[in-house]
């Protein structure tokens, strides 16, 4: 059942095509995250849903009502802005109640709503302060509170955590997740930070150049990307990409050459016709350092210790560098020669057009 339905949404600026036919359907209560590099159109999409930008084609339907041409305030949406956009001349209480006062809600009701929202966001003690007397996290909570009091059908978040420091960001991320559990309201969230997308979302929408690249749960996107773009965008550190050459086609497997080593790839995991050249994608955690043998050899260039684990940057022949996730206590020295085992089950193959041509083993 679609709650928010976006059909062939277009946005043209004078000589710039920002949204190129977006089709998306969101279920009630879902937490959807729009993610993508800057300029991909994610903010434009959110602002078009909000009615802050007008669309130049297509339609938006919310809860069975066409809202494409409706004014922002009539859409039953609330938005939390990147800069919080609190009214600097009003107290926290006035900020929270502004929309209600505009809607001529009775004073008693306003008081009750402001009280309950400020209690749930721990803003009680701050109601008489002005925004400039608040810390970043407090401002953020006021901005969220201002959205909650209106009890909208959908919450829109435009990179709400990007102005906070790292520790606070993690904390607010959790608070948002809890808030979503508690309210159960549909939320749409824009970010360029894929960690936020992975941790918060029921479903992630990846945008690229004004189009939807892929929609899916965080795990789906991680394990089954449709394209090189998605594969590279999701996951830190990035997926390793190694061009393979000298492909030999055999009956039940594909054999390709990587820096003198051969990799055997089951043919049943190839979608469609067998490709003539491929790029091999493999995530750092699917590579293992082994004492000898292995599928690849290289020289350690740099090790990043994270405490619980370490990432070894390894230089292969031909100046190609790959990243391998290693145990935290492994004693690795710069310049040391290492052997690497590749988990063939986890390999993803891309063709020349950056499309994925392989499937994961359980689907093969």
């Amino acid at each position, binding site marked *: 059942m679609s709650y928010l339905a976006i059909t062939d949404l277009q946005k043209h600026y004078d000589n710039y095509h920002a949204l190129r036919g977006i089709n998306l359907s969101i279920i009630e209560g879902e937490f959807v995250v729009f993610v993508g590099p800057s300029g991909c159109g994610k903010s434009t999409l959110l602002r078009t849903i909000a009615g802050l930008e007008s669309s130049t084609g297509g339609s938006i339907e919310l809860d069975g009502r066409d809202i494409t041409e409706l004014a922002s*305030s009539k859409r039953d*949406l609330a*938005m939390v802005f990147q800069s919080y*956009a609190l*009214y600097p001349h009003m107290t926290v209480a006035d900020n929270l109640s502004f929309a209600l006062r*505009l*809607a001529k809600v009775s004073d008693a009701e306003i008081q009750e709503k402001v009280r309950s929202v400020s209690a749930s966001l721990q803003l009680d003690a701050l109601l008489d302060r002005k925004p400039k007397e608040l810390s970043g996290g407090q401002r953020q909570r006021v901005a969220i509170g201002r959205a909650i009091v209106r009890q909208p059908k959908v919450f829109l978040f435009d990179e709400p955590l990007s102005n906070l420091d790292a520790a606070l960001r993690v904390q607010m991320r959790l608070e948002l997740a809890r808030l979503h559990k508690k309210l159960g309201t549909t939320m749409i969230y824009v970010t360029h930070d894929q960690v936020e997308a992975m941790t918060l979302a029921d479903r992630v929408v990846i945008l690229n150049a004004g189009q939807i690249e892929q929609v899916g749960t965080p795990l789906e996107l991680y394990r089954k990307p449709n394209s090189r773009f998605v594969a590279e965008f999701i996951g830190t550190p990035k997926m390793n990409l190694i061009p393979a050459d000298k492909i030999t086609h055999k009956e039940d497997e594909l054999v390709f050459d990587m820096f003198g080593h051969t990799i055997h790839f089951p043919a049943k995991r190839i979608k469609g016709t067998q490709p003539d050249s491929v790029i091999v994608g493999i995530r750092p955690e699917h590579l293992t350092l082994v004492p000898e043998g292995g599928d690849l050899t290289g020289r350690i260039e740099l090790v990043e210790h994270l405490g619980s684990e370490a990432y070894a940057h390894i230089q292969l022949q031909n100046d190609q560098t790959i990243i391998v996730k290693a145990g935290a206590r492994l004693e690795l020295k710069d310049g040391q020669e290492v052997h690497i085992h590749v988990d063939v089950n986890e390999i993803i193959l891309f063709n020349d057009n950056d499309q994925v041509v392989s499937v994961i083993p359980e689907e093969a």
Partner: protein
Amino acid sequence: MTLNQQRKLKTFITGLFAWTIALVLFFPIFWMFVTSFKTELQAISIPPTLIFEPTLDNYSEVQERSDYIHHAFNSIVTAFGSTILALIIAVPAAFSMAFAPGKRTKDVLLWMLSTKMLPAVGVLVPIYILCRDYGLLDSKTALVIIFTLMNLPIVVWMLFSYFKDLPKEILEAARMDGATPWDEVVKVVLPLSMGAISSTALLSIVLCWNESFWSLTLTASDAAPLTAMIASYSSPEGLFWAKLSAASTLACAPIVVFGWFCQKQLVQGLTFGAVK
């Protein structure tokens, strides 16, 4: 010398230098003020008298001879009247230019400024004749109208450059909250712009108060503001420096004191969009 001592010395020298220049530049005003309490004889004595018994005679004579209160009233009415009028006309224009800029907004703004480039003297004759034909010579109405039009471009410009820097997201938040355009202006933009509006008003009042082309050419006595009253003391009919100083002090004191009090406000407002 330690680094700290070096820095202290540097600050001291800077301060000394700044104080010297400030005192030199302020001296004429100080001297005018002091002279206004002297007798005419003391005023022109060489070497200058520094220790004397202050007298208020000059002030009472100025009021008697040229009715200071009357001219001060004219100055207040014209300066404040035209400033308020200019703000009423300029706020909507600046608002729409800042928040709904079109392709020609920049051209319109530069054109407005260019009307300010039009030298007053180029239109002196027709304005004089128009005023004469409509019985507006020596009237406050004429001055208010002219001052309003004269300052309108600068007022629009100052307001525009401030509005333009207001964060757009706040207005969008208001729109999401259900604010109509009218609500946006009255409940969000205006309260946020009180600083800018008051510093714009301040500059406009100062410019009107001190305006001395139209006030000297279009008024005689009834509507003459303080600038015109002072000009009447320029006649070379003898050296009445003490009285002249008293009259000048009276003419300038209101606006100078006003300026001192609002100095911070003025400093913040005078960016004309020149500061990011």
